[in-house]
């Protein structure tokens, strides 16, 4: 159970190298049997013939971090987990790049799998973060989560 408010925001895209380093940092925790990782990647959606070239993220960071803290505590109390890490981009993330990295580790896979799915769902609907979808011609629309 982690009590300190942790930062989750990263400026720009989350790199595969950053993800590899996170995975590597868990190899000394030999009680872990299962890691479940969710990665959100920016899609080049075609909307009225224009492709999304990037999403620019902004957030109410203070409220987001405190909401994330509560979600983290709730999920730790519901599942037998070893650890939990969440990273979300701020600023521009190009199509094909990663904007969300959710990483849950547990002794057994069921806990990791369920906790990861719950986390992703709650992150999308409970954190005050907004995505602005920027098209090739620099027009934009505001992203809507379904």
């Amino acid at each position, binding site marked *: 159970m982690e009590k300190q408010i942790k930062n989750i925001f990263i400026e720009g895209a989350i790199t595969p190298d950053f993800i590899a380093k996170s995975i590597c940092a868990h190899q000394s925790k030999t009680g872990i049997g299962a890691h479940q990782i969710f990665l*959100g990647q920016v899609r080049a959606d075609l909307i009225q013939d224009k492709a999304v070239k990037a999403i620019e*993220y*902004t*957030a*109410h960071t*203070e*409220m*987001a971090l*405190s909401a994330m803290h509560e979600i983290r505590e709730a999920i730790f109390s519901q599942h037998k987990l070893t650890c939990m890490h969440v990273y*979300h981009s701020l600023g521009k993330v190009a199509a094909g790049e990663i*904007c*969300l990295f959710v990483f849950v580790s547990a002794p057994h896979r069921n806990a990791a799998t369920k906790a990861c799915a719950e986390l*992703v769902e709650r*992150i*999308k*609907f*409970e*954190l*005050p*973060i*907004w*995505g*602005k979808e920027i098209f090739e011609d620099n027009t934009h629309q*505001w*992203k*809507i*989560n379904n």
Partner: protein
Amino acid sequence: MLLIYSIMKIKIQLFGPLTEICNGHQIETELVADTHTLLEVLKKRYPALKKSVFAIAVNNQLRKENTLLQEDDTVSLLPPFSGG
């Protein structure tokens, strides 16, 4: 003779599409009694707000009910979240 008025104010933080409707990330208004009154003031100033959906936080706490406001309170208008 110089009169110095200290007008009591509140800050309003805007996010996502609301930054375009209100032309900025932060605006100020004179202190009003409560969040309902504030919304009326804002909707008069920015008519497009009438068609917007958003939640309200006062000093970073979500408030679903009408909430009394005090000097220097910060009100955040939060349109539907779209992270991830």
